[in-house]
């Protein structure tokens, strides 16, 4: 599913070249529930951005679903993300002018351009799965943080992505809500066989993942399979 070899990312800071990720190799299989952990500045988010096709590696190969994505241009990257990848963000990032239903619908009309009946079928199914069907006509400012993250999960899954990347998805939630969200993602992972890759500090997520990858200074120091 994801095959990373000798990935390197160098940022230019003034005249200095700052190596953030170095000699990073990793293979992730279908349906895995993985977390990248490590201290701040260890490169978790940078790895997640490169795996999520948001950032381009300086060198190395990055193959997702048998496609080399390390050399795609901006538009090709956008198309790839729209087809294969879902994102869940720390602060939910819902579009404030759209309702819950419309936020989930957004990728289907603006990116995948699906017909209305197909869209409706998928969205309503997901709304039931994340328990937000009753709130579907509300705008994000009328629902709670936990509900917003449920909507964000539904939005990430509506395009039927093979992989979902989540950067600190529970950081803005209280403990009880965070638990519910993690359980929801776990349930979806099992039902849809979707790969989830987290970048997090949250012990609650760490306790649920199948595999834990620890990063320090842009290098993998431990790759531990828990389940």
């Amino acid at each position: 599913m994801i095959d990373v070899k000798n990935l390197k990312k160098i940022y230019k800071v003034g005249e200095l070249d700052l190596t953030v990720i170095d000699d990073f190799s990793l293979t992730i299989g279908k349906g895995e529930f993985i977390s990248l952990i490590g201290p701040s500045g260890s490169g978790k988010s940078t790895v997640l951005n490169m795996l999520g096709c948001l950032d381009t590696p300086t060198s190395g190969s990055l193959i997702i679903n048998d496609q080399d994505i390390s050399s795609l241009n901006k538009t090709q990257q956008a198309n790839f993300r729209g087809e294969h990848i879902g994102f869940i963000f720390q602060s939910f990032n819902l579009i404030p002018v759209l309702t819950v239903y419309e936020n989930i619908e957004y990728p289907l009309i603006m990116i995948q351009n699906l017909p209305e009946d197909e869209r409706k079928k998928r969205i309503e199914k997901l709304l039931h799965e994340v328990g937000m069907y009753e709130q579907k006509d509300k705008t994000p400012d009328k629902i709670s943080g936990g509900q917003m993250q449920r909507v964000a999960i539904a939005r990430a899954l509506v395009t039927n992505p093979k992989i979902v990347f989540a950067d600190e998805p529970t950081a803005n939630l209280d403990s009880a809500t965070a638990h519910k969200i993690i359980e929801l993602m776990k349930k979806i992972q099992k039902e849809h066989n979707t790969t989830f890759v987290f970048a997090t500090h949250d012990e609650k997520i760490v306790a649920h993942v199948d595999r834990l990858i620890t990063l320090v200074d842009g290098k993998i120091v431990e790759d531990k399979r828990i389940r």
Partner: protein
Amino acid sequence: MKNIFKIAYRNLLRNHRRTLLTASLITLGVVFVLVYTALSGSFKNYMIGQITDSSMGHIQIHKKGFVASVENLPLDKNLNGQSLEYIEKFLNNSKYIENYSYRIKFGGMFSNFTSTTNIRLNAINPDKEFITLPTLKDRVNNFSGKLEKGEIIVPDIISKGMEVKTGDTVVLVANNKTGSVNGINLKIAGEVERISGPGGRDGYIHIEDAKKVLRIKGVEVSEIVIRLKDVNMLEDAMKELNPILSKLNKKDKPAFEIHTWKQLSPFFNIVKMLDVMNISIQIILISIVLISILNVMIMSVYERIKEIGTIAAMGTPPKTIVKLFLMEGLLLGILGAVLGAILSILIVQGLDLMQITYSFGRESGLILEPVLALKDVFVVGVIVIIISLIASISPAIKASRLDPVEALRTN
């Protein structure tokens, strides 16, 4: 496109005060341009109508050199019978000409038996002249509507100065082209109001009386005044009449000269000035639209960097992001243009109902009748909409080029 419209519309509503403020600014600019166009158009049309319909006609034909020495009213630069026969062939075959009339222009002395003053006169064939200049009669006060032989229409400036009125008998004395003096008694048939432009202060007598006093034998006229079926046909009519100029005189130069009212009347310079002012005001409008839309769209991009990062991360192609922002600018432009057009139509109708009067030169009591042509509304609307789109291009491209990673980091 429907969804892009929906999102753009809701984004505008998100900051509805700013949207309303910007749209109001555009509306104000549109109103300013359209009301000015209607007012200046009213003044322009009235003046052009007055000049062409009651004094000059649309086109005039003279013997070569007449216009250059028109102040002297030369009698040796008249068109003779042979020349008229030649020109008439063109006039009678024209598809643009509605009517034409002959005039003898000359100067003389006007006496009320106690005092004497100079007078400039147009000797006319009344039937032809009143058809060629349909509103000439409207300028004549205390007038029965007919100018008979032995009658004179006196410029009101002279009738007031010389204290004469309709029905009074006066004496006209004039020199013919050889210099001999002749006089004739005439009865005042009316008092003609002055208007701007050449010939605007001339009196009128019957052409047969002019022939008598000037001792003209045969056919001789100073000018041919032409009325077109439509004033907008001026250029086409001039092209059609151009072959008249192919006839050469003894000096191998064109024997005749043809002028449009634009070439003869100094008012045309005022028309050009009004048009330049109109263009200047349109440029101000364009600047208002450009700056306000650019400002709003730049703010809109900066306020929504994280949101742009989110939709880009989800896989929205840069092209779609450009469309989203262009649509916002377009909607703002359309809103301003539509509101501006509606408001302008209402204001112009209100001004029309108010019957506002104004003065121009020595003319007073002129009624302002502003009319807003649909073409003007359309043109201004299209300009505003195009400029709105142009102003949105730069912010839209900026939004589409944002790095999703950087954009998502923004708070």
